[in-house]
């Protein structure tokens, strides 16, 4: 059988912020948005093997072999200098994993896990891999009780969602903004498909959580919050809504000059949404 492989930037054995319970998280490389506020910009692009990062590595963990950049994890000390110099927001440390390798890791960590989550980048840019992985897990007697979640920006069209949903227990979906122009400015794309995905996933019973990032002066303005409230009320007042607070950690470019979201303001918006009828609004546990 010819199963797809994935390009992965990181695997976490323990995460309590990517869905219910403890989850193994695969961060898949590559994104179809170009968010100004991205906290992990080096997950956006696939490496073109230009080699610019090779001399930047202080430990000699990177080398050019046959026209391709090769990363030696045993020599890498995670200083991330290679990420700094990459001109296209890529990462030379990205590695290929097979379905078999992921299954082996999941099996090994099974006693600790409530499930697995694929995140990104934008996970659904590697949809074939996700569909295959979740499909195998759902058929496996020893793994089928683990839940399979996708963390997504919602750009995937409905027909494509339909191919993966039979094996997916839930999706966590980001809405960057309701104003289409603002959405365009922030992400480089319009938001119709995102909103349509949210509605479709909810109708299918697979929308586990909506996420909304509060950026002061942009996405936290009254008009946006009103539309957020209406949108969620329309889906279901009990839907999980997670408010995230814009912070500078990891951010590049003009977004570094934007003000960070303050805890008081975030809590104020949360109470406003709760007063408006939403019953499951979560705010950040930490501000870093």
């Amino acid at each position, binding site marked *: 059988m010819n199963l797809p492989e994935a390009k992965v930037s990181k695997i976490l054995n*323990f995460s*309590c912020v990517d869905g219910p319970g403890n989850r193994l998280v695969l961060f898949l490389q590559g994104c179809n948005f170009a968010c100004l506020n991205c906290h992990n910009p080096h997950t956006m692009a696939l490496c073109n093997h230009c080699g610019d990062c090779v001399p930047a590595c202080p430990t000699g963990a990177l080398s050019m072999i046959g026209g391709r950049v090769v990363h030696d994890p045993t020599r890498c000390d995670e200083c991330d200098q290679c990420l700094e110099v990459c001109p296209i927001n890529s990462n030379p440390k990205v590695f290929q994993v097979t379905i078999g390798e992921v299954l082996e890791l999941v099996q090994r960590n099974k006693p*600790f896990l*409530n499930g697995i989550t694929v995140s990104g980048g934008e996970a659904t840019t590697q949809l074939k891999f996700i569909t295959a992985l979740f499909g195998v897990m759902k058929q496996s007697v020893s793994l089928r009780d683990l839940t399979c979640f996708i963390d997504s920006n919602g750009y995937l069209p409905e027909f494509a969602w339909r191919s993966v949903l039979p094996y997916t227990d839930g999706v966590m979906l980001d809405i960057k903004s309701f104003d289409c122009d603002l959405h365009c400015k922030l992400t480089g794309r319009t938001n119709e498909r995102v909103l349509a995905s949210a509605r479709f996933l909810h109708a299918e019973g697979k929308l586990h959580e909506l996420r909304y990032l509060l950026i002061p002066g942009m996405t936290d303005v009254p008009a946006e919050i009103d539309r957020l409230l209406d949108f969620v009320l329309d889906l279901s007042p009990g839907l999980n809504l997670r408010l995230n607070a814009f912070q500078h950690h990891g951010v590049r470019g003009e977004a570094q000059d934007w003000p960070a979201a303050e805890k008081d303001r975030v809590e104020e918006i949360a109470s406003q949404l709760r007063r408006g009828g939403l019953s499951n609004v979560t705010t950040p546990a*930490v501000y870093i």
Partner: protein
Amino acid sequence: MQELQARFKTITEDPSLSFSQKARALSLEAENSLAYPELDEDTARALEERVICDMYEGHAPFKPRYVMPDYSVVLKKGSEFLELEPAQTLDEAINSLMIAYHHVPSVTNMPVFLGHLDDLLLPYCDGVSEEALYSKIKLFWRYLDRVLPDAFMHANIGPSDNQVARAILKVDSELKQVAPNLTFIWDPEVSSDEIFQMACDSIIECSKPHIANHPVHQPIFDSAGYGIASCYNALPLCGGASTLTRINLYEVAKRSVSVEDFFQNVLPRYVDLNFRLTQVRVNHLFEKSRFFESFLVKEGWIAKDRFTAMFGIFAMAEAVNELQEKAGVAGRYGHDDAANSLGHRISAALAEAVASREMEYVWRGRAMLHSQAGLSDDGGCTPGVRIPYGSEPDPVTHIQALAGHHGYYTSGVSEILTLDETIRNNREALSQLVKGAFSLGFREFSANISSNDLVRVTGYMVRLSDIQKFKESGGSRINTTVLGAEASVTGAILDRAPRVIAHEFTRG
């Protein structure tokens, strides 16, 4: 003599010690002015070089290190010595316990074990309303923290789900006190999911309780059972531990030329010397101190033949890394499979050595192996078998790396997992982590949530704000803040505690 008097004087005039802390420091100085029980030359040298260590317990052991009374005796039968009648009501039972605690010595002079409180109090709870129980426990808890302010003092609850255990978890997570420390004993066959989740939720609130894996502990002991005391020591109930001595594995590794030399020659040599040290101290306690003539023995709270000797080790991480270096291989402890296996091999060798050495005056004639974490700042050595601070991998990898050790350390392993605050929004993640750890054979589970004011240092609890106050103004009501561990000389203790905290909590 003059030097001694100068030390006494410094203590009496120290502005940062309360009068009871001064009294305690003075008594330690007095004890340590006596000659040490006689050691042979090799043992004395190893102690002097601190390859083996007596935990600075004092020169004349006149009380066991950990006393684990069966408090049901005083509740059911009363006490002739203390002129107590058997308890008839919940108030009387709590009152008898409060009195009893004052008469139970230990290394800190405060009780390190408060009993299985739910088993002890449940028989008196018929007809007591939930509210009444809650307010009585709350007052009891306040009393313990204010009168016996020592975080080594440890209460046990579980494995059953009952009203006393629930009330204690509720009160404990509300009050967030340093004392008492708390262990919930978990047994999947007996404990309900709700009480287990309550315990996990309480960890998120205040980093307590610590959870003990009953199916792993229980077979080690007999029908009289066990209790968890102090820094997670599992010890025979109605007895305890006479002594705790320990080997600095890093020092042993440094004295070895190769891995094989370590296993063949050097480790066995220091294991032997540590046994000699232990036996000398145990002998002193049993033959000279007259401790066992106490009413505690006569009335059956404890039995003379139920005291074990704890055989401690620490600096496993440094020892493994040193041996890896000597073998010319790169992998580091906690991160590399080969390094981790070498660690497990050391634990197995220690367990075998302890199982084959006969000891006198010791419960079942054998010491019990212990992964020791009492004094945390040991010249940069990491407590017990832990992974060095700041270099811990993620919690799952962390547990997988250490699980292989847990089976060997029958009298306890102190492990602390640091979890970041995001877990507050996801309680299920914590309970799954605990279950995962236990399914791999973890003996006990402790966690700090990194923003909690109340945190574990080496195994005992301190309040970060107390340390802050201590630094600013000098003086703390809580003994453990000051004492760090029960080290010998006051000056050293005062230096140590804040440094320990800084060391453990600057890991970002």
